[in-house]
């Protein structure tokens, strides 16, 4: 290269020469002496041509992005693990600040501001989920659930976990991965508990049947995959605790301005998503998870996460924030550590902290009520379309199941027709839960105005006419 690259300060030939002179090496090639000749790739790499100029690169990238159409131009009712909630502008502003964007891990003193922001993430999330101990984030809700099941298993040494039958297949697949496949000696068997067709709630009879002293934990969600609010939490927890199992509840914290936090009905460990708290969907890149519990030593000592604790400093009255219990992580103990940890979604946690600070108690309450109201409005409106019915007409949060079976069309057909009209219909459930027939899961949030709901309904009427 004759021209220096803007991202490589020493790519100037004269600087390279000066550095070589300083160390007394004849050439850069010579510095690679450790690599045996026969290890080296003979040919040059065949990569697409370099776009070293920013205008060229920008042009190319925009030409690619332009081939996408997003949930901004289109009207989307997709949910099922990633949800379209409003992302306040200052979440982007703060998470995009160079200081946060490019930070690594300095010391508690040099990275004080970021560590404080993380502590504030955990503190505010702790308020929402009513838990005193909150770890730094993990990769996703599914990963958090997987970690939590393993944590429970380490606590009680048992190897069966009960989960709801109609779980998100995406999340369930992740949990299964964490629980190890058949044939592994320490496998945790994942067993499904039936849900009642009438109200979508967990079938307590089936739960009782499956609960025994081999069960490490009962896991359920609020709202569940199909949007249903599980009202039997206290009874489920009572049964689980009676059998010596831990109770793990998965939640979307955005619902907790209106819904009771899981510890209120007996949860020992709470997991869930952080995506809805100020993170863009980003094709799934907004996913993030958390693990929280009572601040009891036996729980804390089994956390796989990195954790930040408030502490004091040399200056009287000053707060500092430092890693807590890091030795038990994989960084500290390698294969003896609790599961493993590494880079996760720490920047998202800062956006989450900003989001929760903006929302406050009233924001979460207002948003929760708005989501309840609009999603029920939408359900009512769709239910009124001939041939379309809403499977469970109340008792849900944000998402609800729409049954197209009686229209004679498949969800795939309906969604294809909607797509032509600029609408992403609900997630097709027909393959995941065949028992439901041609059903789709529609998500309605605060980003959906009444006219959006009306547009969906009239468009569906038009399609199904």
């Amino acid at each position, binding site marked *: *290269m004759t021209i220096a690259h803007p991202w*490589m300060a*020493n*790519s100037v030939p004269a600087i390279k020469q000066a550095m*070589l002179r300083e160390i007394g090496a004849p050439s*850069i090639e010579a510095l690679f*002496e*450790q690599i045996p000749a026969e*290890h080296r790739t003979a040919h040059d790499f065949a*990569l*697409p041509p*370099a*776009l*070293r100029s920013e205008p060229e*690169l920008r042009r190319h990238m925009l030409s690619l992005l332009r*081939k996408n159409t997003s949930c901004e131009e289109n009207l*989307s009712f997709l949910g099922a693990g990633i949800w*379209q909630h409003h992302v306040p502008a200052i979440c982007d502003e703060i998470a995009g*600040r160079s*200081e946060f964007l490019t*930070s*690594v891990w*300095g010391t508690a003193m040099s990275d004080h501001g*970021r560590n404080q922001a993380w502590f504030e993430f955990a503190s505010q999330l702790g308020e*929402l989920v009513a838990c*005193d101990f909150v770890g730094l984030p993990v*990769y996703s809700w599914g990963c958090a659930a997987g970690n939590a099941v393993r944590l429970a298993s380490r606590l009680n040494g048992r190897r069966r976990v009960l989960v709801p039958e109609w779980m998100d297949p995406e999340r369930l*697949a992740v949990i299964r*991965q964490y629980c190890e496949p058949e044939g592994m*000696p320490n496998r945790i068997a994942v067993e499904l508990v039936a849900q009642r067709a009438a109200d979508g709630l967990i079938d307590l009879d089936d739960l009782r049947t499956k609960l025994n002293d081999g069960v490490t934990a009962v896991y359920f969600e609020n709202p569940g995959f199909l949007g249903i609010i599980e*009202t039997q939490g206290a009874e489920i927890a009572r049964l689980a605790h009676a059998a010596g199992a831990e109770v793990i509840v998965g939640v979307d914290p955005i619902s907790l301005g*209106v*819904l009771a936090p899981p510890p209120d009905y007996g949860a020992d460990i709470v997991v869930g998503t952080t995506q809805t708290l100020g993170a*863009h969907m*980003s*094709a*799934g*890149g907004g996913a993030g998870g958390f693990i929280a519990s009572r601040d009891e030593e036996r729980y*804390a000592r089994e956390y796989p996460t990195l954790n930040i604790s408030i*502490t004091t400093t040399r200056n009287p009255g000053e707060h500092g924030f*430092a890693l807590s*219990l890091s030795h038990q992580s994989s*960084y500290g103990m*390698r*294969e003896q550590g609790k599961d*493993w940890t*590494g*880079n996760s979604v*720490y*920047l998202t946690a800062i956006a989450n902290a900003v989001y929760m600070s*903006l929302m*406050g108690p009233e*924001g979460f309450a207002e948003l929760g*009520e*708005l989501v*309840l109201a*609009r999603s029920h*409005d939408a359900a009512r409106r769709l239910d009124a379309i001939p041939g379309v019915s809403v499977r469970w007409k109340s008792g849900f949060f944000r998402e609800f199941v729409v049954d197209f079976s009686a229209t004679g069309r498949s969800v795939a057909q309906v969604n294809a027709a909607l*797509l032509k009209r600029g609408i*992403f219909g609900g997630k097709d459930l027909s393959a995941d839960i065949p028992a439901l027939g041609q059903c789709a899961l529609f998500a309605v949030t605060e980003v959906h105005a009444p006219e959006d709901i009306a547009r969906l309904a009239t468009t569906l009427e038009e399609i199904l006419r």
Partner: protein
Amino acid sequence: WNEPVVMEMGVAGRRGVVFPQPETDAAALIPAGMRRRTKPALPEMTEHDVLRHYLHLSQQVLGMMGVSLFGTCTMKYNPRLSEALGLRPQMAEIHPLQPAASIQGLLEIVHNFDLILRELSGMDQFVFQAAGGADAAYTHTCVTRGYFAAKGELEQRNEIITSIQAHPCNPATAATAGFKVVTLMLEENGYPSIDALKAALSPRTAALMINNPDDMGVYNPQIREWTALVKQAGGLAFYDHANFNGVMGRIRARELGFDACMFMLHKTFGGPKGGGGPAVGAYGCSAELAPFLPKPLVVKNSDGSYGLDDDRPQSVGKVREFLGNLHIVMRAYAWARAMGADGIKEAADLAVLANNYMEKKLLAIPGVARSNPEAKTWRMEMTRYGLGPLKEETGLGVVEVGNRMTDYGIDAPWLSHEPWVVPEPFTPEAGELWSKEDIDLWCEVLAKVCDEARQDPELVRTAPHNAPIGRVDSEAPEDPARWATTWRAYQRKHAATRARAAE
């Protein structure tokens, strides 16, 4: 700024964001008993107050605002163009379940970046589901399970071999996946011997998981023999390419006999650190292992369009929901395109040059020792050093020195993964980003602080003096009675402490 904790801020009634009134009464829609009874004790602040608070905190982060030669993390320039692109609705507002037809640009990026990584590694297929390097290592353990399960050898092959210098994520994910971990120790030349490997190999061997070069800058020249021996024993060889930056454009994992490898897009490929993600561990493998990869895969259809292949019966399923942090893949793709083949190779050249240049400066500082001092070759992209001699002389080690360095705008160096094989270790990595002057400055500050450790040890012992806060008490966070990862825990314990003090 002497910034309070956000939980202490705000006034009842203030609002940071408001929402429209619902068109219908929502209260009736909450099932009996499920309404939240007490409001969460979150702060009540205006939008401006929230912004100002987090702006203040942002200004209390040093990181790359100074010079950060943070080893094993390959500090690169994180192009701001990609950050702006990441906020475009065509990236930010994409739902992962959108029909493939609506995300053709994204799938094209993923597929073409897959091709780039294939070319760089010789592998046959990449997947981006893993949300970090460690998660990619875990992906390997999952694929390993799937592979041997399909062969009916899962119960038999229950050991994974690694070395004491491999990144901790390798033994940790192997153990989490249910394997027994066999760890090889280093010998004088800086890597385990062939004999040690042979002794570890057996019909129980499922895989080898290894870095090369390691964090000492030492390249194992026998690595082809290693992969051959592992293969001979029936195991899989996984290349943790955490230290890829120094060998980019020189070697290809597949040609060295590896069955799989991983790249960290948030390090080697210019993605932003973000204090630890969102990240991507790009996992690539041979065609033989590809059927077992997490699904779905992004594929190019015969008509030139792109799609998702979810019909993969042998797939091990998922390691994380959806397709991964594709917004980071987008950034990595942009980085790779801006660099090109020549640029990527030059980055490796410059990283190795910078490391050896830095080494000369560092070894001139009294008190600094080098790992594997007997290895007289030029090192690869980074090298571990130790302040053992300084510690012996002054009683002050790398923690104190690092704290004092931050007073000069130099973020504390990365020390070492566990276990510490060098006393008072530190592992600076200059990479291709930092200028000669930045490296000079870094070394000068280290020299100055080492000097201060002799001249004015108290100054160094009590450092930092120029940071947002004073040196923290790191014992409280390990004490169950005092640790507090949330404000509510802190308040409870603080009240308890005060109550005890009052008794």
